[in-house]
């Protein structure tokens, strides 16, 4: 099975308010808020770290969940966020030039 890479879509606007990530779609200005898992995924989505590594290093330590189950859920979540053009997903690393600098508060 090939590895999945995720990157924040540079066209969105985002801000973290008290731990809750607020994202505005660059496509139609629809506003989303991300839950804790999606926020961790968003913040770690640098385009170069494979999703399985993100799950292992960032998600599993936060939640009491089996790694295989967490990876399956994370892939589903990443594809859903990609369908809203919030994340970019690829089977190859995504060039850093097209990914935004991280931010947090």
């Amino acid at each position, binding site marked *: 099975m090939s590895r999945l890479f995720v990157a924040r879509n*540079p066209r969105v606007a985002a801000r973290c308010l008290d731990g809750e990530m607020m994202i505005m779609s660059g496509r139609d200005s629809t506003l*989303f808020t991300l839950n804790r898992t999606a926020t961790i995924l968003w913040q770690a989505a640098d385009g170069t770290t494979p999703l399985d590594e993100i799950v292992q290093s960032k998600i599993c330590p936060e939640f009491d969940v089996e790694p295989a189950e967490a990876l399956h859920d994370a892939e589903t979540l990443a594809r859903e966020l990609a369908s809203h053009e919030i994340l970019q997903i690829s089977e190859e690393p995504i060039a850093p030039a097209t990914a935004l600098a991280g931010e947090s508060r």
Partner: protein
Amino acid sequence: MSGLLQEMTEKALALNIPLSVQLDLTYRCNERCVHCYLDHDDHGEMTTEEIKHLLDEMAAAGVFILTLSGGEIFVRKDFFEILEYARQRTFCVKLKTNAILIGEAEAARIRDLGVESIQISIYSHRPEVHDGITLVRGSLERSLDAIRFLKSQGLRVVIANVLMIQNVQDYAGVRSLAEELGVESTLDPTITPMMDGNRSVLSLSVDQSALQQVFRDTGLVGNVDEFCAVAAPADESALSSLPCSASHTTCYVSPYGDVFPCVQFPLPTGNVRKQRFLDIWRYSDQMNEVRSIRIKDLTTCTQCSHVSNCSRCPGLAFMEGNMRGPSTQDCEKSFARTGVPSANMLSKRRAAANLVQIRALPALASASA
């Protein structure tokens, strides 16, 4: 406002976060609009690096919606460098511009940088009227060309029209033009006094009959009966509510780094060249004074029948001399909308009736006869 944005605004209010900021990059402008409230000379604008530092501070403070305005933003040669930096900090960026410097290449760059919307000032569908307000020949044509370029890039464009004596007959024409171009439009009948307090530009304001016509236009207000109805008496909840979002979830920063509660509320609260943005936001005495005001603290307005649905602007009230007082321009709007004079208007009428009348003395009158 969408439900989720309302929810996030309430969260920002509870956490004392400046969710939305207007940053004017310059007061310089390539138009000379007759109603403009700004001094267009450069008195020491922030440098590119100062603005980038401010954007870092704003992002850390939780600012999400960043409106870049002026003056005319495109007269700054570093405009795209600033915009790119702002987008790298993931602000939701909105632009306010006259757009006459936006060509096809600029429109494409704005699209690439993921700008949320571009608000463009259009005062009339007739060149002689629009250009007569901007005092720049050909400005309407150039602004409309820019709107077409931006639309062709799939960007959201909003036409902003300010109603004044010069264009009072043309707002329907502007609205039709917006529909033809496939963009949104807004109409604002408020002329803002100059930042230095000079109120002479208010002479350009439209009269009561024009306001009445606007407020009874279903295309603008929807259900006229509902819009023009007198409000129900204010209950305790309404009296405890906030006058507006200024100092609560929004503020304004001038090109010189001065921070104000709002672009229309010129109460200096600090300067980002001397203090951290977040320190001004949290600890400025002036910011906290504005923040402390509730509707029930308003001196005249609490006695007014319009208090629970008035468009009263605290900044305009401040410019009249009292941030807790009425804003006469909004009293006039409430009167035009409902036909019921405001408490402020009635008070002024009583004061005028009590003036001592000056008459010729009888002896002098008969002596001169």
